């Protein structure tokens, strides 16, 4: 692995996850709420990509249940979507690690889209047909968030990443 050992320590993993939960819990409203990126999913996928031995399906599923509670949605809706996204990242993992931030975000877009479509599908089947397609807007902001995080991570560990190529 290209990153130094201490970057993936448990305290850092749990800290970023707690930060993601906190960001989601802020009192968002109006347009900001509609386009709010899925902080929790992006954080989970980041750690699945860089520390797959720590964060995997089980964590993603439990945090998905938490996301379901946060949104007042049916239990299982986000949990299933997060599991699907984790599978996508594991499937493309070695490939994703090769790319620069912009292309990595581009590769992650279909995974995030698949996760959101899973939310849509489960909600459709379990509750009622969706209203409008605004549900897909957070995919764009989540992708942008991933790009920013990947940029930041490369700036932080720049040499290590480049040395791994």
């Amino acid at each position, binding site marked *: 692995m290209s990153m130094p050992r201490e970057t993936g320590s448990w305290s850092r993993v749990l800290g970023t996850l707690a930060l993601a939960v906190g960001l989601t819990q802020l*009192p968002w409203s109006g347009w900001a709420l509609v386009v709010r990126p899925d902080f929790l999913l992006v954080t989970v996928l980041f750690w699945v990509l860089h520390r797959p031995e720590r964060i995997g399906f089980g964590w993603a599923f439990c945090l998905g249940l938490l996301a379901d509670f946060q*949104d007042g949605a049916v239990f299982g809706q986000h949990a299933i979507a997060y*599991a699907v996204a984790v599978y996508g990242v594991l*499937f493309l993992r070695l490939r994703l690690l090769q790319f620069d931030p912009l292309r990595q975000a581009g590769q992650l877009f279909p995974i995030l889209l698949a996760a959101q479509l899973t939310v849509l599908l489960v*909600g459709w089947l379990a509750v009622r047909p969706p209203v409008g397609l605004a549900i897909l807007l957070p995919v764009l902001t989540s992708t942008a968030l991933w790009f920013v995080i990947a940029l930041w991570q490369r700036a932080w560990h720049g040499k290590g990443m480049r040395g791994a190529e």
Partner: protein
Amino acid sequence: MAVPGQLTFARRLGPTARLAIWLAIGVACVVLDVRYQAMEGLRSGLSMVLHPVRVALRAPADVANEVADFFTRHRLLQQQRDALLAERSRLALTANTARDLKRENDELRALLALQARPGQQLVRAALLYQGHDWFGQKIVLDRGATAGLRNGLPVVDASGLMGQISQVYPGSSEVTLVTSPGQLTPVMIERTGQRGLVAGLGQGLLELRYMPSQTDVRVGDRLVTSGIDRIYPAAVPVARVTRIGRPQAGPYLRIEGLPLAGLERSRAALILVAQPVAVQQP
């Protein structure tokens, strides 16, 4: 070297198999929640864990509001200093203040009118968190079962009906908004008294359903609760009619309206706790 009784290649399950297992668990969760309402324990547990976090994280927003207020007051002070020099701007400011007071007075009157209803107790609550479920619009208020709330109670603000409590936790409660898809509210047209049913359409819109095509309804009519459902008190404003369509097919009008309550703006809400009505057994 192979040791008897030990696997030569200790294998974990592949990602596909693990995905399949978690998907099965997820589907089981959905079915348990939707069909059997078996996940309420988990819901209230999470609510107890996350409630302090929500309360704590409301603080930054409150501080931001405070700061914004501070700068507003500062600007107001500057305006008043200018007003001493220029008579006209002082008059303009007075007019502004008067309009503001009038609005405040109207709001208080609206609140008082609701308060005067018999057999009702009011619980004041503040908006804690706005949910982001795409299949139903919900908000979370900072009062719960400890304040005497229960499922089904109507929630209003100064200008109209906001929704109905759909989930009560010890210290907070979830309100399903009137505009949430599938939320039904019995109403009547205030001008004519004709009763009907309002359904949420999502995206901040309401629809008045099942009105025959000869119904006397106009754009601008107010819809108020009819009070025949034992849930909502009578005459709480719900919506204003904004569009009337007359489809060629079908016997009913297509009537759309906008909610009167500030669903997106209100930060405070009132919950009407009526005494439980004894329903006569047939």
